[in-house]
């Protein structure tokens, strides 16, 4: 099979089945921004150094500036837009000043999403080693992520405590 004219590439974008006629060698980054209109994913360096263009491909963080569209065919692509602006990581970045100029932030958050529950500070550093930030000095970013993961664990426990209190009062 030879792609001379652009064939249709189908992939799942933030849970939605998406088709595009873009060239199969077009960068996934450009397809997301230009063809799908999702401009949350940023281009920093264009050579895999800065991580600003990080998206999840089948759940794993990748630099979308180094992914040809054809490698996303039949895969799940998740971008910052999937979080809808109210995700606990996004709120934590706002609260702790984890974002300043904001170019690196979507990439930072997508890399953080892939860290799994309750990452250690070393785990956060290693998981975000491929994401560069020129404003914050990183500490506030790590703090945001650590706090968001703490909250994710604390919240159900608090909910449970509140439920028990109400139950006790009702009795």
């Amino acid at each position, binding site marked *: *099979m*030879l*792609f*001379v004219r652009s064939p249709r590439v189908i992939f799942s974008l933030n849970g939605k089945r998406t088709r595009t006629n873009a*060239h*199969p*060698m*077009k*960068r996934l980054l450009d397809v997301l921004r230009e063809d799908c209109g999702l401009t949350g994913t940023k281009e920093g360096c*264009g*050579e*895999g*150094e800065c*991580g600003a263009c*990080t998206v999840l*491909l089948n759940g*794993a*963080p*990748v*630099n979308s*500036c*180094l*992914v*040809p569209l*054809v*490698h996303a065919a039949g895969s799940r692509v998740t971008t910052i837009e999937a979080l809808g602006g109210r995700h606990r990581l996004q709120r934590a970045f706002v609260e702790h000043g984890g974002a300043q100029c904001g170019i690196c932030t979507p990439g930072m958050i997508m*890399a953080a999403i*892939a860290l799994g529950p309750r990452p250690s500070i070393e785990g956060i550093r*290693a*998981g*975000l*080693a*491929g*994401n*560069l930030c020129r404003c914050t000095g990183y500490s506030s970013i790590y703090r945001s992520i650590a706090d968001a993961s703490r909250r994710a664990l604390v919240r159900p426990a608090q909910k449970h405590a509140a439920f028990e209190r109400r139950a006790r009062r009702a009795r």
Partner: protein
Amino acid sequence: MLGSISNRQATWFVHKFRRADLLRSADEETLMLGSISNRQLFQPRSLTDALSMLRDEGPLVPMAGCTDLYVALNFGTLDDTRFLNLWPLDSLRRIEMRGDVLSIGALATYTDMRRSPLVQKILPMLVAAAREIGGVQVQNRGTLGGNVANGSPAGDTLPVLAAADVVVVLRSAADMRRVPFSEYYTGYRRSVLGPGELIVAFEFRKLHGRQWFRKVGTRAAQAISKVVMAAVAGDPPRIAVGSVAPTVVRLPSTEAALGRGASIDEARQILLEEIAPIDDARSTAEYRQRVAANLLARFWNDSFITKSRRTRNL
């Protein structure tokens, strides 16, 4: 308004304006996508398919994780227009034991190798190398075959492959051959890989002795190494260094000296005669020589002296 911005910004605005003008006056598609619309992509369904495409339609540029290829494409430093997409060939991704040989498929990513219990057990130095390449994003995409095919003298897995005396398995439509890693590279970014051939796997024999890996670069992640060393504390020891010559090198004289019980100072002197690094954007020859000699001492210390001390303490 123009008076308030610096010279550099002003140039940028002019540049942008001119580019916008060009877009309006010329065919937008050819300018914007320029080379991309000329690109042909061959999409094989199997390895056999890929090899016959390479034979009948070549030359084609093989495409794996694209962490090197797309850097060149994004910066317009690659003129090739015809590509062969290897990424979907899952059969090249296997990591398995074949008898007493560990076989790692060319498409195994750094993440695959880090996570593989087989690689962790048999080749801990390869896990160490994979952990220090790029960031997570690059490790999820970059492949062992790609690191070898790209052939940079600074490739981080290459000293590991050299120290382990890996066998590179090459396939073409008609043939299959096994090349010892020491014979694979013939010069700076040159190898014995023929035009119709693909790297399909790497075969490792079990190694005796503790394995050691150390990369020295500007930063732990992302940075390209200034000096990278992999070594096995066997009898005799095996030592390979990257970024100090046009290709990765083994140090046979240093190995032999250490093997016959020479002192570490003597071995350091021999190492300095064996390598001839150059000055480049990342480092200087002098620095590289000193660091390589220090790494040798560190390797020897980590492998034997600390071990015997530990035994004494027990």
